[in-house]
């Protein structure tokens, strides 16, 4: 089997606070293969963004990776010194943030942003970098790039700015792009365009994507596989079709039911009772059990690891009985 682009093993992110240490990401493992799009879904505060931020090494202190490993193309990157990690960012891992309106420095032109990034990662001169910048703008679908390159971010609409942000994230042809809610701040009509663009570019360049979103629709349309996060852990992971149509974890089922369906007969939209626990009050056993309609005794006492459940894997005792899954041991290493 080919070496995965990104392999994360037992990653734990902790925040020391005055009232004890909070675990924002708790012992999660996943892998992304070359050219693959892994979607990560979950509610706000489930640890999705924290996972992405930890992978690219941009956790804000006091947050820190307290355990586990992150490997990029086989090499460990979670313990790299500051300067090496910096060189790797943008060069081999790109990142796209949620809000294109605030991702660009208002005092600099689009061209400055692009040439600055290109020149940081390649040894191109100013003129070459500019030529490359215009190419990139063309590639992300900015009309009249030769003129617009000298304009400032405020001359661009939200969708156009997100295109520029994508160009910036891809300008050194990274192996992996972490897209943290790339469409959340955009109009619905623009969202589809941006997702299509991201998909097309990553396919053309063979870039893998870690797509973080709370929008199941975006995941269904874009991702190859999907990981569902709840309270800092991965509760289900599998091929996107399987997870969407045949959810194994009660939480995923709840998420799917909560998506409004056109032509559906129900008057009330199904919702999951209760709210996700605070990080300081995660219950014993399965973190989801207080909200789970199918919880039983074992759920309240023992924390489930990821267990094989058909084509996907789910951290739920409902699947404990199935063969060849139980007992993978701590860590719940995903087989990918």
């Amino acid at each position, binding site marked *: 089997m080919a070496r995965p682009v990104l392999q994360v093993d037992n990653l734990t992110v902790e925040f020391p606070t005055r009232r004890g240490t909070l675990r924002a990401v708790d012992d999660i493992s996943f892998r992304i293969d070359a050219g693959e799009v892994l979607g990560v879904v979950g509610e706000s505060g489930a640890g999705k963004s924290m996972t992405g931020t930890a992978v690219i090494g941009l956790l804000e202190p006091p947050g820190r990776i307290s355990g586990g490993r992150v490997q990029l193309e086989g090499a460990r990157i979670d313990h790299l010194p500051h300067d090496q990690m910096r060189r790797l960012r943008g060069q081999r891992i790109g990142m796209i943030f949620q809000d294109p309106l605030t991702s660009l420095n208002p*005092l600099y032109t689009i061209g400055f942003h692009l040439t600055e990034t290109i020149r*940081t990662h390649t040894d191109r001169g100013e003129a070459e970098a500019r030529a490359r910048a215009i190419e990139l703008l063309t590639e992300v679908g900015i009309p009249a790039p030769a003129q617009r390159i000298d*304009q400032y971010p405020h001359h661009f609409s939200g969708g156009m700015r997100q295109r520029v942000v994508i160009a910036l994230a891809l300008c050194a042809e990274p192996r992996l792009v972490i897209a943290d809610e790339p469409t959340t701040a955009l109009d619905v009509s623009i969202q589809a365009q941006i997702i299509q663009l991201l998909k097309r570019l990553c396919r053309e360049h063979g870039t893998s994507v870690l797509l973080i979103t709370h929008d199941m629709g975006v995941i269904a349309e874009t991702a190859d596989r999907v990981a569902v996060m709840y309270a800092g852990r991965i509760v289900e992971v599998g091929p996107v079709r399987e997870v969407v149509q045949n959810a194994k974890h009660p939480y995923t089922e709840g998420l799917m039911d909560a998506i409004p369906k056109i032509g559906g007969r129900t008057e009330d939209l199904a919702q999951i009772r209760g709210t996700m626990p605070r990080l300081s009050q995660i219950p014993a056993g399965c973190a989801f059990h207080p909200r789970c309609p199918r919880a039983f005794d074992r759920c309240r006492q023992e924390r489930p690891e990821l267990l094989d459940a058909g084509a996907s894997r789910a951290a739920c005792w409902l699947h404990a009985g199935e063969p060849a899954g139980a007992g993978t041991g701590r860590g719940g290493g995903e087989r990918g």
Partner: protein
Amino acid sequence: MIAFIVRRLLQSIVVMLVVALLAFSMFRYIGDPINQMVGVETSSEERAELRERLGLNDPMLVQFGRFAADAARFDFGVSYQHKKPVSELFADRLPATLELAFLSAVFALACGIPMGVYTALRRDAWLSKVFLTVSLIGISLPTFLIGILLIFVFSVWLGWLPSFGRGETVDLGVWTTGLLTVSGWKAALMPSITLGLFQMTLIMRLVRSEMLEVLRTDYIKFARARGLSDRAVHFGHALKNTLVPVITITGLQLGSIIAFAIITETVFQWPGMGLLFLQAIQNVDIPIMAAYLILIAFFFVLINLIVDLLYYAVDPRLRVDRATSAGH
């Protein structure tokens, strides 16, 4: 852009007229100018004649028009106590005050900005804590006390620096400067630090808080995610955004440096406009007081105008270009 400058200039003229009116009213309401000029033995006929000759019987508006027109040509009449044209007196004193203010501002900026940046980037370093503590002292101690302390230590105790005056000056025709002689620099050192210390701490704290704010923004996060060097992130992106509010405050502070020079000039007997003004108050020398008021207002207006223009240079969002309207 042109329209903006014209509008700002018009506003400035209005401000200057209002200040001129205030200055003018001093002549009317702080004693009788005739009494200030003549002796006790002057007869009332002579007084009336003088009043008529000086145009003090004309309607108010005419008098004010004359005053404003003269002031616009920097003609503020003759000082009562020095019997010399006020403009001449100020021309002698202005270089001293402006040099002092300039040195203080340079000191405040050259120390305040780097210290602010340092304390923002190295929040937990012990040196940051030292800077912050010192800045607290700088903010809370009154200017004259700092001046007196400096004189005590460096003039009385150590005897390194002169405690008063400007040192040797070089006459460059219209401008006498103390910046070309060693003794001039020595004499300027303590007054400029005294005058600039408060501004320095203010700028340092402002830069620090603005910088911390900017460092939290998304575009800084994104700049880091693009792999830019710390240098490029901190000085290319963060500092430039920090400077927008800093320019405003610095501009306003420069005005007050010139105005507050009064105290420092008194403490160090610095032969500037402030000292002249204080002496004028003691002797009810109204032409000098009026001229001082107008000059200070003029500096404030001028500096504000420059600050507004600087905004345009720094922040592209303010530049209105009709050629390219916002995207699609």
